[in-house]
């Protein structure tokens, strides 16, 4: 992990809903792998104090510029709003690359990438790497509506076979990616699945993969403070290697990529807060 004050090279809108920031960060770019993220501090004088985590979308090591990384985000609250307001030449405190990247399969060949909405971000980076490694890549992209699909043109190009699904039917299949998953696995002869998106979607994909006896890797999200492994706020419930108990593992540095079969999908935050016990840090 490297901490550096990096300069914003460019800032543009991607489609109607997303922003893309290109950040000059040579050291981070050199080490970055698909699935890893950067933890950025949008402003030092804001009423919010914490960094914000963003998956690495692209890395550019060539070109006359010093190496850059790109992140894509949509405005959710104060942090993303502050980032959306940044201008070229503004500087940004960035830590990265953070976490365990997606593993590139050694023997298996046919890879299926399943992305939900903004969850497509790390998969685009991954697709590039997989192809460079000579793998077959097929993609299945889902979103609530067409405008939430992350740059469909790139996305389409990313896969040998590339299929879309939207909840409102505004693009591709009218429904969810999981409706199409079994058929895709058939058509593509899928041997490895990579997924990133909403919790429920990753849980469903993981369970289907398990049924088809296909290894699955998921890139997860969690509310995180430090992003470097020291606060224990970001844990995920994961089955221990013996599979006999659920352990709390840090998403930031032990993840964000996990074996989908190991994540204890049902052990997550209850629908309501627990009966209040005395707080303990």
């Amino acid at each position, binding site marked *: *992990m490297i*901490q550096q004050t990096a300069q914003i090279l460019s800032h543009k809108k991607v489609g109607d809903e997303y922003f893309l920031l290109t950040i000059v960060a040579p050291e981070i770019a050199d080490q970055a792998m698909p699935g890893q993220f950067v933890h950025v501090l949008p402003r030092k004088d804001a*009423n919010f*104090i914490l960094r914000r985590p963003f998956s690495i979308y692209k890395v550019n090591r060539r070109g006359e510029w010093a190496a850059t990384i790109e992140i894509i985000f949509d405005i959710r609250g104060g942090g993303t709003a502050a980032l959306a307001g940044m201008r070229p030449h503004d500087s940004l405190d960035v830590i990265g690359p953070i976490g365990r990247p997606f593993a590139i399969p050694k023997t298996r060949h046919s890879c299926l990438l399943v992305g939900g909405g903004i969850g497509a971000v790390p998969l685009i980076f991954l697709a590039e790497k997989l192809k460079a490694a000579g793998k077959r890549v097929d993609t299945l992209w889902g979103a609530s509506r067409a405008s939430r699909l992350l740059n469909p043109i790139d996305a389409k190009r990313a896969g040998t076979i590339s299929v879309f699904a939207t909840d409102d039917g505004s693009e591709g299949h009218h429904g969810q990616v999981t409706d199409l998953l079994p058929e895709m696995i058939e058509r593509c002869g899928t041997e490895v699945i990579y997924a990133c998106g909403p919790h429920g979607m990753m849980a469903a994909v993981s369970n289907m993969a398990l049924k088809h006896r296909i290894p699955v890797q998921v890139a997860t999200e969690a509310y995180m403070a430090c992003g470097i492994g020291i606060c224990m706020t*970001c844990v995920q419930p994961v089955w221990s290697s013996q599979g006999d108990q659920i352990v709390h593992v840090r998403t930031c540095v032990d993840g964000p990529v996990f074996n989908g079969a190991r994540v204890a999908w049902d052990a997550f935050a209850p629908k*309501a807060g627990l009966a209040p016990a005395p707080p303990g840090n």
Partner: protein
Amino acid sequence: MPVDLSVDLAGVRLRSPVVTASGCFASGREVSEFMDLKMFGAVVVKSMTLEPWPGKPTPRMAETPSGMLNAIGLQNYGVDHFLQVDLPWLNRAEVPVIASIAGNTVQEFIYVAERLRDAPGVIALEVNISCPNLEDRNNMFAHDAKATATVIASVRRAATVPIFAKLSPNVTSLTEIAGAALDSGAQGISLINTVFGMAIDIRTARPKLAGVIGGLSGPAIRPIAVRAVFEVHKAFPHVPIIGMGGIMNHEDAIEFVLAGATAVALGTANFINPSSGAEVVKGLQRYLIERGIGSLSAMRGRVKVEG
């Protein structure tokens, strides 16, 4: 002109007045990628219990104005893991260690303290009494003078090093609890632990923390912490105090020293900037040199207040 940043904590000399706040630094390995841990006078490690604790479900944190709430539930791998894995690493890194201990019963505190007897490089224990007491309807030890006295006296008997009582600010009288801890053999006081708080996501009507109520930390609580340090120092001027609560930079650190802190601890600051420790130490050096002040200790408790 060389400046002296070293401080005396209950007979133990720290080369730097800046330490880490328990639970905000794990055991140091991660941050060593960002800064030289030797800049810290000591590393106060995450509170350890007798057995490993799994901690609370997620979400465990929520951001609030100039602060954050956390409800971790003291997730830790237990004292034995600390002795076998973390401590040897810290010893190799040559950083003095203050071991924070926790438990739900007096006996548990005693067991943990005994395991830590003569542990190499452990220069002091910090007793985190902000823990629910199973033997008293889950009341926090730190919220009751008698419970505080019992835990501290027991740990005192078990321990071979100075012990600091880590106080909770969520009480009517901090000086009463501090007095109970000191009368029972604590050599020093650490404060403040987090302030109880809660946040609700109005879109889902759910608490933002799975644990519902959590601990507030960060700049938002700094005034609360400065006042706490001031009150305890005024009541017990000769007792060493490790002050913490929203310290982000060297100026904040100086505010705590003027209020009465002997040393200062960085907690949430590490999450925002993992090299905070180094920056605070360098900032303190610059500050003293620029003003020709020979030693930081000379500033302790020097806030100008009548009577």
